[in-house]
């Protein structure tokens, strides 16, 4: 007997699979951490209101004032904040 796989679960699975590298990070602790690290670099931001995870220790943060920054740890172990 042929078993038919429903379309919706497949789409959900695929979406999850491909969306994994860029998960929205709404964890307040992550947003607070990103806010602090951007401020430590002396960059304009206010508060980080949203972030998208690009990879391990790699985020694109959206600030309250509209600025966007990529925050990541480079190969030398330094935190880098790049304006996007």
């Amino acid at each position, binding site marked *: 007997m042929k078993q038919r796989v429903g379309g919706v679960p497949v789409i959900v699975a695929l979406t999850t699979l491909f969306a994994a590298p860029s998960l929205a990070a709404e964890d307040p*602790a*992550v947003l*607070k*951490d*990103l806010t*602090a*690290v951007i401020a*430590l*670099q002396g960059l304009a931001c206010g508060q980080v209101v949203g972030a998208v995870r690009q990879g391990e*220790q790699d985020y694109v943060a959206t600030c309250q004032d509209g600025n966007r920054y990529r*925050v990541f*740890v480079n190969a030398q*172990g*330094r*935190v880098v904040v790049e304006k996007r």
Partner: protein
Amino acid sequence: MRPPAPAPVPAPGDAAPPTAPRKESAPPVAATPPAPPALDLAALEKRLRATNAIGIFTKLSLKNQVDDLVARFRTFHQGAPVAVAKLREEYDLLLLKVLSVLQDGDPELARDIGASREAIWGLLLDPVKFKKVTS
């Protein structure tokens, strides 16, 4: 010249004998500030690593900035023309950053680091102590 005024006569009902020594209140002693606590840099570093008040990016960023400042002191101790006032400015700024990120989430650690400000500065400025803690 006027003669000295006579000593006041005690009232008849006064219980205190006239010859009893008068209790003098202790002279005011200048309040001495409490001695600064002994610096335990290793313990402070351990607490800074362990605190949940700041996230991993913040910790790493602070570590980067501490490393940069230590490198500046290293060149200073090697004889590079670096003004102490400039180093102090950078040190104060960095300490301010540390305190500002800690003050809400871990006020006790912020207080202890703040209290160690001069001791840490002294350690950085002294070439012997500096070499000892950075080797």
